[in-house]
């Protein structure tokens, strides 16, 4: 059992595997909060982290939304960056070569406005040296279907998954949006469409009003809520999805301490991603990792998978 104290300290095994991709530990940097990777160099030992998920790339560069793009809310952050990015070509050409020096697996996050765009991007990443997996952000509006997010309709979510799987042999992680009635329905569809893993949650749709200037605080009116405020919702969804599908689940949402991460691992997440917390404290991922290892030592947990609760 977990709480036995042994005299010989164990050296816990934190390595995991996601869709065939082996990671030395389960603590990843979440997309959109670690830039293109190198920005964090020197503030965080990138080699120690389980994986780095590059900010969302689109087929063409995107300028993003007008400012203001950020508002702080109670224990939360609302952002409407508008998926600003340099586009997949510029990334492959200018950034990827520098990133090949890092020993930690690189995962690229992609977003699109049509199933075809997702297919096309996955195809281009397929051959790229140094990219170990693709995380597919399906929270984006489907332009052909009147702007409804891919991730809110089970069929569309499944067709994106199909398309991406067809385009590449890389492991595919589908990243779910929490703004749905039944997250398990989407998760099941995505799993049967061939996803290698599921990550969740993306941000909750929210807004704030600037009462001084009498206008929405974000120029875009709505934004995505992240940070500690959303942790209970994220954890609930991870718990549900872990029990609904057989593929690995990566937990995201408000993780800023080792205890937060342990909650997700106990809920059954195979790994966790650190998002907003990295913005506030760049070294968070390393500290979370150390804390998980210490907990496992103290509580004599040999393998990180054994943290999962039975129920």
């Amino acid at each position: 059992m977990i709480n036995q104290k042994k005299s010989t300290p164990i050296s816990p095994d934190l390595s995991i595997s996601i869709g065939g991709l082996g990671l030395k530990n389960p603590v990843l940097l979440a997309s959109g909060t670690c830039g293109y990777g190198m920005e964090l160099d020197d503030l965080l030992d990138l080699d120690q982290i389980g994986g780095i998920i590059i900010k969302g790339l689109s087929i063409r560069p995107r300028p993003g939304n007008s400012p203001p793009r950020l508002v702080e809310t109670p224990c939360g952050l609302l952002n409407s960056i508008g998926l600003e990015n340099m586009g997949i070509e510029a990334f492959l050409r200018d950034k990827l070569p520098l990133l090949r020096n890092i020993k930690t697996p690189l995962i690229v996050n992609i977003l699109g406005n049509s199933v075809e765009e997702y297919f096309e991007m996955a195809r281009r990443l397929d051959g790229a040296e140094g990219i170990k997996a693709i995380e597919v952000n399906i929270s984006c509006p489907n332009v052909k279907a009147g702007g409804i997010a891919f991730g809110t309709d089970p069929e569309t979510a499944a067709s994106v998954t199909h398309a991406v799987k067809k385009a590449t042999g890389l492991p595919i992680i589908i990243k779910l949006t929490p703004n749905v009635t039944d997250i398990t329905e989407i998760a099941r569809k995505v799993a049967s469409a061939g996803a290698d893993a599921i990550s969740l949650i993306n941000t909750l749709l929210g807004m704030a009003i600037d009462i001084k200037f009498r206008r929405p605080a974000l120029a875009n009116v709505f934004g995505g809520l992240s940070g500690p405020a959303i942790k209970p919702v994220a954890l609930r969804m991870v718990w549900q999805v872990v029990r609904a599908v057989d593929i690995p689940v990566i937990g995201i949402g408000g993780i800023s301490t080792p205890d937060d991460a342990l909650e997700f691992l106990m809920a059954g997440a195979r790994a966790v991603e650190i998002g907003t917390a990295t913005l506030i404290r760049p070294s968070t991922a390393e500290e979370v990792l150390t804390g998980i290892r210490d907990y496992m030592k103290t509580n004599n947990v040999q393998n990180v998978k054994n943290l999962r609760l039975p129920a």
Partner: protein
Amino acid sequence: MPGFDIPANIVEQTRLAHSIFLLTVDAPAIMDSTDPGQFCMLEVQENNSKDPLLRRPLSIYKTGSNGQISFLYKAVGKGTRLLSKRRPGEIIRVLGPLGQGFRLIHDCTSILVGGGLGIASLLLLAQGIKQSGRLIILIGAKNAAEIPTVEDFSRLTRYFHVVTEDGSLGQRGMITDLLDQTLQEITGTARIYTCGPWSMMKAVYHMVSKRNIPCQVSLEAAMACGIGLCLGCAIPKSNSRGFLHVCQEGPVFDADQVHWGQNS
């Protein structure tokens, strides 16, 4: 190199005026590599409280020979008010030095235009210019209490002028009038460095751009990370659809780069 994230010991926290404070911390690594116009992100919460969630950006006002750096700030909201309660002996996390500071150009007349607490990003610059060229400092504020540290500036140059809206310090008047007057008097090439409210900087820029005088401005934006991770601190560029990112490409920009029409 995005700076150092240091648990810094608080050496001094002095209230200079009603809601204006001078905070000094031990941060040798930051001090050693600070350029004029750079800033830090400061943790304001205590005891792992997550509200407020974000760090707050403050310009590096002063550096001491003993590894200390100081911030001159106004307690305007939740975060800065919490910061003002932190006491000497406590530890506070400081990330810095961050961003692109002022680009010093020597061999010309440098005119520094500071509005209110905008002066917080100008002192190191003024000290730097003093070594090498002619330095004119113009400071404007609502009243004397808003700029409790003017002596730090006035001692650097003879060409020092301050105006306040209520006449409580220096002449009564607007900084733009003072600048206009100064521009008429100077001879030779000049450069402008300014920091203050958006509307003031906009007016300064319009005034000097007509005369083709180069102008550097130090801007503010809501920030989450301060190091280029989140892309939240965008402001519109002057001549394209794209955006500048205040924390990484700024906070100091050539005024020409900035789209001044919006955000006013």
